[in-house]
């Protein structure tokens, strides 16, 4: 359970995106930015560094998202960074995505894969998860080369691991 400030920020982002009427696009863009933020150490340290002037950090966000995301997404990220919550951005976005999916009576299934899934694969996976767990889900794909092959799906606390990485780890364990 996320702590209350994170849930509060997520609620604020959801309210703004819903009010702006582009919830789905903002959701995808925030999710994508959060993945980039987590993967990029330099970006993470710069946006979280209090010694860097806020104006410069905001300028950096604007430069990064220019032409790639909506103004609403850029504004919401700038708001979180300005509030000094840059380190909590991935958690806030996760809570936001959960809240957004919840508004449609769906859960979020985060799928980590070495390559992006095709639309057809996403559809089949959504159906497969529904068949397996009985939950309506929205699939969010995270590109993670360390998975090597296959995919890892996280739905809340449930994890379905069918990655090549897991098999290699099992092989490593069997050697011990």
């Amino acid at each position, binding site marked *: 359970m996320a702590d209350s400030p994170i849930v509060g920020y997520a609620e604020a982002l959801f309210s703004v995106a819903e009010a702006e009427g582009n919830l789905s696009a903002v959701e995808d863009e925030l999710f994508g930015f959060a993945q980039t933020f987590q993967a990029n150490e330099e970006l993470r340290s710069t946006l979280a560094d209090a010694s860097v002037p806020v104006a410069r950090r905001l300028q950096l966000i604007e430069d990064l998202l220019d032409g790639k995301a909506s103004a609403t997404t850029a504004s919401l990220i700038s708001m979180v960074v300005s509030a000094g919550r840059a380190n909590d951005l991935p958690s806030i976005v996760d809570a936001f995505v959960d809240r957004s999916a919840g508004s449609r009576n769906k859960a979020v299934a985060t799928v980590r*894969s*070495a*390559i992006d*899934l*095709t639309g057809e*694969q996403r559809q*089949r*996976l959504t*159906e*497969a*998860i529904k*068949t*397996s*767990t*009985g939950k309506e889900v929205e699939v969010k794909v995270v590109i993670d080369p360390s998975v*090597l*092959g*296959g*995919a890892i*799906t996280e739905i809340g606390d449930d994890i*379905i691991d*069918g990655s*090549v990485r897991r098999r*290699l780890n099992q*092989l*490593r364990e069997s*050697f*011990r």
Partner: protein
Amino acid sequence: MVASLVSLMSIVAFAGPASASGESIGACVAERFEEAEMLHDGHYHDWLEDVRNTVDDELEGCLDAPSPILPELTEIIWGGAAFLILLVIMVKKGFPAVKGAMDARSEKIRADLDAAEQAKTDAQTVQSDYEAQLADAKTESARIIEEARVTADQLRTDLSAQAEASIAEMREKAAADVEAQKAQAIADLRAEVSGIALGAAERVVQSSLDADAQARLIDAYIDEVTGSNG
């Protein structure tokens, strides 16, 4: 006793010769011999027979003299008077003095005997005390020696047990250390080998996983999720 001796000497002194005429028996015999020799000059053997007969007759005359035991009356009177005087003196003066000296002597001897008896009793008491103390000391020393022996035995046993336990513990620890080091070495070696093998396998997998293989793996994964039921 002294008084009795003095009385006897007085009696002998006052007795004198035992003849009635006042001459001794020897002088009487010699006188008879002289008279016989003058009568029988020149006829020795006859004379000698006559002498023998005469002497026998004359000696019988000598022996018929007054008793030498019974003194004359005057001697008895003087002797008795002296005896009585001496007896009185002795009874009055000598006997009490001698008796006092004897009594004192007896008393002193009795006191000395009592003192000696007391000393002997004291000595026996002291000896008894010493013997009792000696016995106590012997008992105490025996007890202390026994106690020390028991303590020494116990100490030796304890030390021996401790040493054995320590040795056993050290052996176990050494064996455990060796075993642990061996297991650690094997584990390290196995981890090293498996790391190398897995690194190689990972590189092979990465190089062999092209887009088609990745798509097939995703499809297989979706089928797996569909197949898993919860």
